[in-house]
């Protein structure tokens, strides 16, 4: 009886309390946000519940929720590619009026992040999200191995330049092959843990890091959705061939379906000299290396052009939420410069200019300068409402070529274009 009374009382107390639910991926930055949000609750009395979904299921779970007009989430930190679907299908609340009313200016945020995370149509002034988490694909390397005099001299003798942060993908390849199969401290090491995951977006995010650096464009800048000769240009083909070479010659055995966590594990366990991963993981890597002796970080290397694959997310209010007012209150709080500074301090990647332009920012962490460099050169996959339909054929064709070794790079890219044309035709874009 007492238990029943207590539970009834608890239920009644909870149902009276103001609370919202925020959905995001389950990873380190989400824990930092949870920590940061305690201050929001303390200030406003609004409880924030979190639902973090592991990355492989993140898109499925969230997009199903939105398509079903679910009310589970009031706030959603959705991937950059979702913005088109969020806007066109009416899943996200348009935030322009709210921003105007609260004096939140998009000019206060890094232009690249506003363009990527907030706007639809791209580059317009229609905002559906506040830039929440800046991110790009970058590299970490074993600085402690690179600093060994015997390895340095051997490398210089072999390649004629210093072992260090690679200035191009060619240099990256030289360094990866240098470490491939090498025994260091009695253990066999490998070159690089790169993205090869088949199921969601992994290999696409990885291969585009090379394709962008080779100068690939998705479409004719003067004729939207005209992809022939752009997406399958000779440079793009060369980049895909290079990525396969990197996988074949430099990846550790069994690294055939790897993405964020697998790359991180391969690196942390000392298997590889390099890992490709998102900036979001660098605070965790750096935390375990307090004197900065073991790990170094650098932005995606240049080949023909300087470019990096965009990651990161904006925070949006879900149209189907019954608590939009509370959700907007959270966004208003989150947009404050002081909160943004704390967000960066806790391990989140703020996109606010006050944080990024602060003189102390580049030296605030060992990867801060790389982050700044990367955010100036980012490129993203299609952000069309049909982005999943565009992503899946690319995952299949690229995995088939890079990991499976089937066909040619040109054949894979042609096949992708063929599928994309079908998608755009069905969507009335072509």
């Amino acid at each position: 009886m007492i238990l029943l009374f207590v539970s009834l009382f608890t239920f009644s107390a909870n149902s009276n309390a103001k609370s919202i639910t925020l959905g995001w991926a389950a990873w380190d930055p989400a824990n930092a946000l949870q920590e940061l949000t305690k201050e929001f609750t303390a200030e406003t009395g609004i409880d924030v519940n979190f639902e973090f979904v592991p990355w492989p299921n993140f898109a499925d779970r969230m997009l199903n929720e939105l398509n079903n007009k679910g009310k589970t989430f009031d706030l959603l930190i959705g991937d950059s590619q979702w913005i088109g679907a969020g806007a066109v299908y009416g899943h996200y609340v348009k935030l322009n009026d709210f921003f105007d009313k609260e004096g939140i200016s998009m000019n206060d945020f890094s232009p690249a992040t506003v363009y990527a995370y907030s706007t639809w149509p791209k580059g317009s002034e229609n905002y559906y999200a506040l830039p929440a988490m800046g991110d790009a694909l970058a590299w970490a390397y074993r600085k402690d191995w690179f600093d060994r005099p015997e390895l340095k001299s051997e490398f210089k003798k072999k390649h004629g330049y210093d072992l260090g942060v690679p200035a191009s993908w060619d240099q990256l390849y030289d360094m990866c092959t240098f470490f491939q199969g090498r025994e260091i401290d009695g253990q066999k090491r490998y070159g690089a843990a790169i993205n090869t995951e088949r199921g969601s977006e992994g290999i696409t995010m990885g291969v585009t890091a090379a394709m962008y650096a080779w100068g690939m464009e998705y479409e004719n800048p003067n004729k939207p959705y005209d992809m022939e000769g752009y997406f399958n240009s000779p440079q793009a083909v060369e980049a895909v061939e290079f990525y396969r070479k990197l996988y074949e010659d430099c990846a550790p055995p069994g690294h055939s379906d790897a993405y964020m966590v697998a790359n991180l594990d391969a690196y942390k366990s000392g298997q590889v000299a390099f890992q490709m991963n998102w900036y979001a993981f660098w605070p965790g890597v750096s935390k375990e290396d307090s004197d900065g002796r073991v790990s170094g970080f650098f932005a995606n290397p240049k080949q023909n052009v300087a470019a990096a694959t965009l990651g990161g997310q904006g925070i949006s209010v879900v149209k189907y939420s019954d608590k939009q007012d509370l959700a907007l209150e959270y966004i208003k709080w989150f947009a404050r410069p002081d909160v943004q500074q704390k967000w960066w301090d806790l391990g989140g990647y703020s996109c606010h200019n006050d944080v990024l332009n602060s003189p102390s920012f580049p030296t605030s962490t060992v990867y801060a300068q790389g982050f700044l460099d990367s955010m100036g050169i980012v490129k993203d996959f299609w952000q069309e409402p049909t982005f999943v339909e565009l992503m899946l054929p690319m995952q299949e064709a690229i995995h088939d070529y890079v990991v499976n070794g089937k066909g040619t790079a040109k054949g894979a890219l042609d096949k992708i274009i063929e599928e994309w044309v079908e998608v755009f035709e069905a969507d009335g874009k072509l």
Partner: protein
Amino acid sequence: MSVKKKFKGLSDKAVAWLFIGPSVFLLLAINIYPLIYAIRMSFTNFYANKIGREPQFVGLKNYIKVLNKEAIWEKMQVTANFMFWTLLLQAVIGLGLALLLNRKFKGNELLTTLIVLPMMLSPAVVGVFWTYLYNPQVGLFNYVVNFFYDFGSFDMIGSSELAPWSIVIVDTWMWTPFTMLICLAGLRSVPNYLYEAAEVDRASKWQQFIYITLPSVLPFLLLALLFRGIENFKMFDMVVELTSGGPGSATELASINLKREAFEKWKTGYSSAFAVILFVTIFGFGNVYVKVMNKIKER
């Protein structure tokens, strides 16, 4: 007494309907209605994620598209290969194990329990831990194979030649015990006097197996294979966890492709047509199979 009063006046037929009514309702609501709805959708260009866009009737366009798509036939071929090898191996090994366990020896019960353990696990969990077993650096599988013959390091799930075998091996490991249990039930139902009569007639052990054991156990084995065939035709979770359908599309079964078309690309009309084709295929094969099975039983 009160129940009797309550049903007084109701005919036997009405009482029967009263009992089967809830089941019929659930069957209609959960199975038949979605099936009819899917058939209807298969003639439209419906996209479940495109809110506000009315589906339009497109006739047989989706069916033609599915049947003309080379990639679909590749997936069907992958599914057929997977089914053929898993059913063959499970039939042979399952029957072998059943014959072994049908003998009386010390530790028989313990061995039976150990053999059936894999099928009690969740397919998703099995998929995940076999990815570790197959790992070329630390996995036990490479170690065991190389213990017998040194193949060097090989990647079971990263190679298009080996990946289809990787899913066959795991499914066989997991589900052979099921075939074994059904066969064992069949073996234990064979009357002893048949063997005694065969002994009197001086039939050899091989002749006893061919003329008594095999015909007796065959209907059971076929039944087990029917269940396994239906399950493997819609196999999804274990393979997704193990290979995600890769490398490329080397292990992308029809069911995985269907899920991607329906719930990732949201091509509802197209995937409904694909689902109907798969349903008709399995229904057709199932019917033929059951007829053959009944004929064998009648012999």
